[in-house]
C-alpha cells in the first residue's frame, strides 16, 4: 500500500527565506504522526503545502493527489484545522453545521451535534460571542464529524484549558481514531501528545531531521546520567548531546552499547521531548 503522504525534495521559499528546504518524508496510513519543530522551522508551511493551500517546488502526493491542483477532491477525504480561531466572527453555530452538512459529502450531522452537546454551546450564538476556547471546540466538533481518511491538526488545542485539552485528546484517540484514519498533528506541547503518537517527524530549518516511529526511538536512543569522574569515559562513546543536571551530566546516545553505559551510570530511555531538545540544541560541546 502506498504512503498516504509522500514528499520528495519539498521546497518552499518566501523571497530569500527558505521555509522548506528539500524536505523528504512520508506518512503511512493508520498512523498518528507528530510534526514537531521549533518556531519558524517550517511546520506550518509543510502543512499548508500538504493541504493545497500554497504552491511549492518538489514532488508531493497526498492520498495520491497533487494538493494545490486537486484541493477540492482532496478535501473530500482530508480535513484540517489549520490554526485556531479561523471560524468567521459572523457565523452562527447552527449555520456552520448547516453549511458543512450542505457542502461536505462525508459530514455526519448527528456526530457534530453530539460533540457540541458535550460543550454546552448553543446553536444560535455567533462565533464573536464565544470565547477562544469555545470557538476551537466548535471547530473541532465540525472537523471531527467529517469521516476523513486524513486529519491534519495545526496546534489544535491552543487557547484551550487543560480540561478541554485532555478531553479533546481522549476523544481523538478513543472515538475518532481507527485503522482507516491517519492523523498529522503539530503542537508545541510535545509532552501532551507524546503518548498518543505512533510516529514523529522532527523538522528544523526547513529540513526533516528525524523520521521515526516511537518504538524505534525507545530502542535506538538512550541517555545516561554520569558523575564527573566517569565523564571522559562516557564522552568517548560519542554522545550526540549532553546537559548538566543536579551535579551530574546527562549524555544522549544513538545506537548505544547499553552494557557499557550501565557501567557508567543510570541508563534511561528518551522521551520525545528529551529527544527533541537533544536533537535540536545541537551536538555535544
Amino acid at each position: 500500500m502506498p504512503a498516504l503522504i509522500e514528499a520528495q525534495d519539498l521546497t518552499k521559499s518566501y523571497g530569500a527565506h527558505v521555509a522548506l528546504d528539500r524536505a523528504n518524508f512520508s506518512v503511512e496510513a493508520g498512523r498518528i504522526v507528530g510534526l514537531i519543530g521549533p518556531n519558524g522551522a517550517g511546520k506550518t508551511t509543510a502543512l499548508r503545502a500538504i493541504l493545497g493551500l500554497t504552491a511549492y517546488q518538489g514532488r508531493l502526493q497526498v492520498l495520491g493527489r497533487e494538493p494545490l491542483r486537486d484541493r477540492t477532491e482532496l478535501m473530500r477525504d482530508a480535513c484540517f484545522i489549520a490554526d485556531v480561531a479561523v471560524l468567521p466572527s459572523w457565523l452562527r453555530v447552527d449555520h456552520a453545521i448547516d453549511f458543512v452538512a450542505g457542502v461536505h459529502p462525508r459530514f455526519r450531522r448527528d456526530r457534530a451535534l453530539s460533540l457540541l452537546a458535550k460543550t454546552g454551546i448553543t446553536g444560535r450564538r455567533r462565533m464573536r460571542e464565544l470565547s477562544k476556547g469555545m470557538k476551537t471546540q466548535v471547530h473541532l466538533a465540525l472537523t471531527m464529524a467529517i469521516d476523513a481518511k486524513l486529519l491534519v491538526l495545526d496546534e489544535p488545542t491552543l487557547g484551550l484549558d487543560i480540561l478541554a485539552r485532555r478531553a479533546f485528546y481522549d476523544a481523538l484517540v478513543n472515538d475518532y481514531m481507527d485503522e482507516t484514519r491517519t492523523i498529522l498533528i503539530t503542537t508545541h506541547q510535545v509532552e501532551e501528545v507524546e503518548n498518543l503518537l505512533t510516529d514523529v517527524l522532527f523538522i528544523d530549518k526547513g529540513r526533516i531531521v528525524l523520521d521515526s516511529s516511537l518504538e524505534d526511538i525507545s530502542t535506538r536512543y538512550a541517555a545516561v546520567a554520569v558523575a564527573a569522574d566517569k565523564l571522559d569515559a562516557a564522552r568517548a562513546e560519542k554522545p550526540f548531546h549532553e546537559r548538566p543536571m543536579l551535579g551530574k551530566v546527562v549524555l544522549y546516545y544513538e545506537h548505544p552499547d547499553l552494557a557499557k553505559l550501565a557501567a557508567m551510570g543510570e541508563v534511561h530511555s528518551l522521551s520525545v521531548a528529551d529527544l527533541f531538545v537533544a536533537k535540536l540544541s545541537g551536538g555535544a560541546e
Partner: protein
Amino acid sequence: MKTANWLVRREFWENRAIWVIPTVLGAFLILVALFGKVDLMAIPSQLPSQTVGGGFLLAAAGTFFVVMAIYSTWYLLDCLYADRKDRSVLFWKSMPISDTTTVMSKLATALIVIPAVYFAAADLTSLLMAFILSIRARSLGGALWHADLWLQLQVLWLYVIVTSAIWYLPIAAYLLVVSAWAKRAVMLWSILPPIALVLAERWFFGTHVIANQLGTRLFGVELAFRDAQGCCSWVTTVVDDKTIRTPANIWGFLNPGGFLSSPETWIGAAIGAALIVCAIQLRMRRTEI
C-alpha cells in the same frame, strides 16, 4: 448546484447589508411618502397621467439602482479580502469547494443576487408609496396605477440587470482581483492602478485613450439603449410655452441587438473573463494577508 445554493446563503449570513440597506432605504422612502409634504403644484397639470406615473416609478427605481451600484462595488472589493483578513479563508478552504466555485459565487452574488434583492425592494417600496400617495393626494387620480407602466418597469429592471452584468463584468472582475490580492486598503488599491495608467499615458504619450476607455466603460451601458431622437414614440406637452417631450413607453429605447452585436460589449466580457481567471488563481495561492 447544492453547493452554489449554500455559498449564496453564506453571503447573506456574512453580508447582512445585502438586505438591510434596501430595507432601510425602502422604509425611509415610505416614511417620506407618509409624512413628507406632497406638493402637487410642482407637477404641471397639463402633464398626462402616464408621464407622472412613469416619472414616479423611474425615480424610485433609479434611487435603488444607484445605492445598489455603490454597495455592489464595495461588496466585490471586500468579499475575498475579508476572508483573508479574519483568516476564515482557512476554514472555507477546508471544505471540498473549488476556488473557482467560490469566486464565481461572489461574482454571481454581486451581479445577479444583489440586483435581484434591490429589484424586489424597489418594487415593494414603489407599490406601498403609490398606495400611500394615492390616498394622501387624491388629485393624482390613477396616475401611479398604470398597469402597463408597472410591466414596463419590470422589463426595464431585468434588461438593466442582464446588460449591466455583461457590460460591467471587467470592472467587477477587476475588483475581485484587487480583493484577492491586496494586503490592505482595497479601496485605494482599486483606484490607484487606473489613475496611474491614465497619468502615465498622458505623461509619456500625451494621449488619453485609457481615460476614454475607462469613461466609456463606467458610463457606457448606454450602448444598451437607443439614442433618443427619432427612434421612439414621444408624448409632447406644452407647459407655460415650453415643450416637454416624454417617452410614451420604453420599448423603443431598449437596444438589445445593438448591445449584443457591439464588439465593445464582447471585448469587455473577454477582459472580464481573463481577470476572473486571475482572481481564481490568486484565491488559490494567497491565503495570507
